[in-house]
């Protein structure tokens, strides 16, 4: 299980962006995880919660957006979510496809408990 080391990296990044005194007000950590990234969202949440327990970040929760696997056809510019493992463009029949999304593991944004107009 590599979700523990990923959770550690994630916390390191959060700490880079949020000063120590503001960490208790962190409420929501928005992540994007591709369905082919080999990351289990439940395991990552479990590890994250365990690591932030009784730390200034303990009120922070992960919200995970799952990004589907999509392909892009370089022949006709069509992007699509393949059904199963099809490897032909449904629009033009070309097999010149490159994978577009599905491998993400990204920290999108951090939400703090404060008025949305406050400048960060």
């Amino acid at each position: 299980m590599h979700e523990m080391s990923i959770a550690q990296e994630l916390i390191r990044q959060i700490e880079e962006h949020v000063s120590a005194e503001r960490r208790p007000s962190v409420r929501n950590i928005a992540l994007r995880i591709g369905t082919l990234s080999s990351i289990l969202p439940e395991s990552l949440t479990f590890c994250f919660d365990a690591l932030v327990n009784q730390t200034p970040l303990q009120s922070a929760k992960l919200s995970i957006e799952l990004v589907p696997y999509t392909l892009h056809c370089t022949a006709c510019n069509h992007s699509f979510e393949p059904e199963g493992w099809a490897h032909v463009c449904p629009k033009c029949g070309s097999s010149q496809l490159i994978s577009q999304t599905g491998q993400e593991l990204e920290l999108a944004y951090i939400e703090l408990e404060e008025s949305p107009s406050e400048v960060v």
Partner: protein
Amino acid sequence: MITVERKVLEKNDAIASRLRQTWSSQKIFTVNFVSSPGSGKTSLLEATIRRLKNTMPMAVIEGDVQTDLDAQRIHALDVPVVQIVTNGACHLEAQLVDDAFKRLDEKNIRLLMIENVGNLVCPSSYDLGEDMKIVVVSVTEGDDKPLKYPGMFIKASVLIINKIDLLPYVHSDIATLRGNALSINPSLRVFEISCTTGEGMDPWCAWLHSQIKG
């Protein structure tokens, strides 16, 4: 709200990019072998080294959770080898490989083979700076392996189907295994081999040799 928009593993990716540049400038071709435990990666490395070690200088970085037994097997073949013991971690990270490469006595090499920890999930998230990932599956593991671990098969460039000498004794069907893998990643190059009988080793080694730079 603080907009971040960063890859969580960007630190690992940055080290991997630096390694890739180093190896590219030194004309070192680097492969990262990944598989489940027991698929025969170390035996494959041994058989490959025996066939190729007199044709070019090479070295091995061995990843293992606890022991250095695999490194001893490579060392016995008189090839430079550095062991990484991950102490429980289920994958290699670029920083560990960077440290290991620094420990390598002989850097004037053309081929660097990294044997990752036996695991088809975790290593797929970590770029090690390799030129390509090579996934090894033995016929005893069942022909649905690619469907269970698509994340790894989509990232690999080569599939080695190992232990084909055992085909008469197992239920898995090699055509199904190959078909499943190619359905996920049509650009996979597939080799079918047996380290025991040597069957299929020639085309695999010839191809590997052809990848060497300059």
